[in-house]
């Protein structure tokens, strides 16, 4: 099957999957408790409660309620966030931008460090780069993120005082417009190096903390895949052609080692997203993760449902991207089987 047809087909199935996901999300949330919990207090009389229920349509059969929710979503109405005291659709993009900027930075750190460390380690097995990678891999996989994050904070913020906390400096923030909500991009658009450095400066520690675990996973996978590839006949055949070791490594072995690594990279995406909750709380990062933590604690169902629905769709898309990249790297993959 052609790659283009394959992508097209997958996109066609996507809406069906999303509907399925939305039903699951709706059901699970309802099982968790009444959506009006956040508005109730002990002093209310049963009739007052019934009135609130009627106002939100909760006296209707469940499937009608689902359809109403779905209809709202199609019209861009995601409900009201009690925590933010505003419609979910007003707040969501802002929080999303904050989280995406953090996750993207962490993803870049993990991709770059993971692949570089893994390649060095695989190519120089049992030598210094390999040992360094092993330390990163073991610590990255075993140190709890909150512990590592707090450790960095104590050292660089509390003790040395060189790292900031939060997402930006208040005066610098006020000095430029924020059309995208991604502060680094906004700073570039406003041509303000000062704002750019401020944004990057605030990103470094959270991105490093968030990306560390993923770095470990990617590096370990890359290393073992590369070690395996370097033992294949085609590597010797490439050397037998007179190619420089650098070309043998980069063009032949590393490229092929990336094939299994791409799948793992796709999986680490979930790891990153999950990590944003902890990281945003530790570093006071005003993103989805922190908002979600608050919403869970206070039973803010509109926000929760939107978040879960959104991340599910994101996962479906990431999976599709991984499959496409995978097929592009390795032509032996037969699509759509």
């Amino acid at each position: 099957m052609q790659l283009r047809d394959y992508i097209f087909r997958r996109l066609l199935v996507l809406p069906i999957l999303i509907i399925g996901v939305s039903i699951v999300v709706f059901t699970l949330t309802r099982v968790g408790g009444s959506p009006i919990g956040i508005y109730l207090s002990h002093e209310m009389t049963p009739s007052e409660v019934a009135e609130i229920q009627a106002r939100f349509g909760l006296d209707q059969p469940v499937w009608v309620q689902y359809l109403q929710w779905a209809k709202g979503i199609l019209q861009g109405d995601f409900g009201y966030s009690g925590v933010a005291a505003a419609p979910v659709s007003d707040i969501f993009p802002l929080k999303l931008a904050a989280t995406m900027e953090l996750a993207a930075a962490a993803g870049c750190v993990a991709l770059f460090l993971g692949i570089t460390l893994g390649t060095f380690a695989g190519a120089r097995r049992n030598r210094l780069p390999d040992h360094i990678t092993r330390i990163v891999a073991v610590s990255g996989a075993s140190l709890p993120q909150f512990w590592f994050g707090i450790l960095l904070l104590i050292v660089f913020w509390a003790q040395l005082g060189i790292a900031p906390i939060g997402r930006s400096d208040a005066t610098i923030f006020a000095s430029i417009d924020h059309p995208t909500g991604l502060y680094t991009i906004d700073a570039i658009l406003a041509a303000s190096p000062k704002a750019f450095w401020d944004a990057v400066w605030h990103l470094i520690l959270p991105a490093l903390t968030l990306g560390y675990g993923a770095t470990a996973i990617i590096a370990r996978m890359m290393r073992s895949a590369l070690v395996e590839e370097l033992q294949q006949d085609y590597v010797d055949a490439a050397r037998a052609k007179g190619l420089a070791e650098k070309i043998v490594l980069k063009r032949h072995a590393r490229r092929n080692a990336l094939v299994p690594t791409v799948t793992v990279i796709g999986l680490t995406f979930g790891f990153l997203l999950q990590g944003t909750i902890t990281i945003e709380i530790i570093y006071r990062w005003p993103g989805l993760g922190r908002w979600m933590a608050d919403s869970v604690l206070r039973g803010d169902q509109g926000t929760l449902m939107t978040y879960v629905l959104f991340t599910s769709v994101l996962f479906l898309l990431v999976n599709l991207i991984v499959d496409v990249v995978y097929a592009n790297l390795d032509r032996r993959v037969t699509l759509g089987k």
Partner: protein
Amino acid sequence: MLDATQASENVASVRDLKVHFQSKRGVVHAVDGVSFDIQDGETLGLVGETGCGKSVTGRSFLRLLPVPPGILAGGAVSFRPHGPCTACEGAGCEACAKTGRRASGDQPVDLLSISLQDMRRIRGDRIAMIFQDPGKALNPTLTIGAQMSEVFLQHRTAELLDRAGLPPDTAGAVRRFAAQEPRFGDGLILKFPPKRGQRAKLQVALNQMVTEALAETQVPNPAKLMDRFPHELSGGMRQRVMIAQALACNPDLLIADEPTTALDVTVEARILELIRALQQRRKTSVLYISHDLSLVRRICDRVAVMYAGRIVEIGTTEDVFANPRHPYTRGLMAAVPTAGTARGKLAAIRGTVPELVDPPLECRFAGRCPYETATCRQNDPSLQPVSGGHSVACFIDHPTGSQDAPSFDRVTE
């Protein structure tokens, strides 16, 4: 070691080659004092059971051994690359089979001691190799064209620039592409004008060279084959690609390590024919490694029989097959299925190749040999001539002088 006349006829000489491997059980003497010559233009067969050191010997020519665990424990592999033909000065004449190159009187180089830089210049250009399984020796994620191009980029940069109509002193990203020394950012530079046009011209020239090389191996539609991936081709087709790639630069020596073992019998015959035809036309010398005696008999001028890290018999194909002098050679011949023997009923040699961890001082075939005597357990026979060009390492032809010399007339098992 070699006198002048003899030396000029040899494209390569292996002298007392020792390659060992560090293993958990000790040092494996995989190749343990092997000496032989490859004469210019000949096909030398290297036969023996699996595990007796044939591949390690063949790979030594290109230094394609994993070190560690491998240890180059001693010896020399001297190689005398061809120089420009004196009769036609490289233009190509009858005397040099239109290749423009002939055996030269130059000093040979020791392949085991030259720098890796020099080794790389020889690999793929002066000495090429074909591997056992073409399905594994081709990179699964690169097209045939991309893989074959690498040989030309590595060794034929000048010709490539010339064909593309670019000056020989072309520099910068274009040259780095043509010489396969990419730097970070080159890809981007070559994607946009003004370099884009030159890159395109190089690609056209490169495709032309690859197509020509593929056409030599009689593949149908070589231009189309370039865009295919290895898994889309049959085994025979893949091996043709490997052969085309190996012979692309007209090497002086081709190491063929069981090139048909992974193929069907019907395909095998055609591949053999192809190697033979190309070799004769280009006057390339071939070291043909195989475990199949009957196959070696068909295509080789001379045969070296290897056993447990040693050459035990060597001579012209005629001599060795008409009058095999080593019990192991005789055993191998008896094991060859003929039209008469039923399948699966080979007269195989009993036992297996011994583990070569610190081998004791005795004949390595002792224990499996039907003629062995006490002498064979106390001494290690060396390769000695029995007649001109035919040598054997066995006490049957070269008794030590002690009482119980072995003999073909006395089966002792």
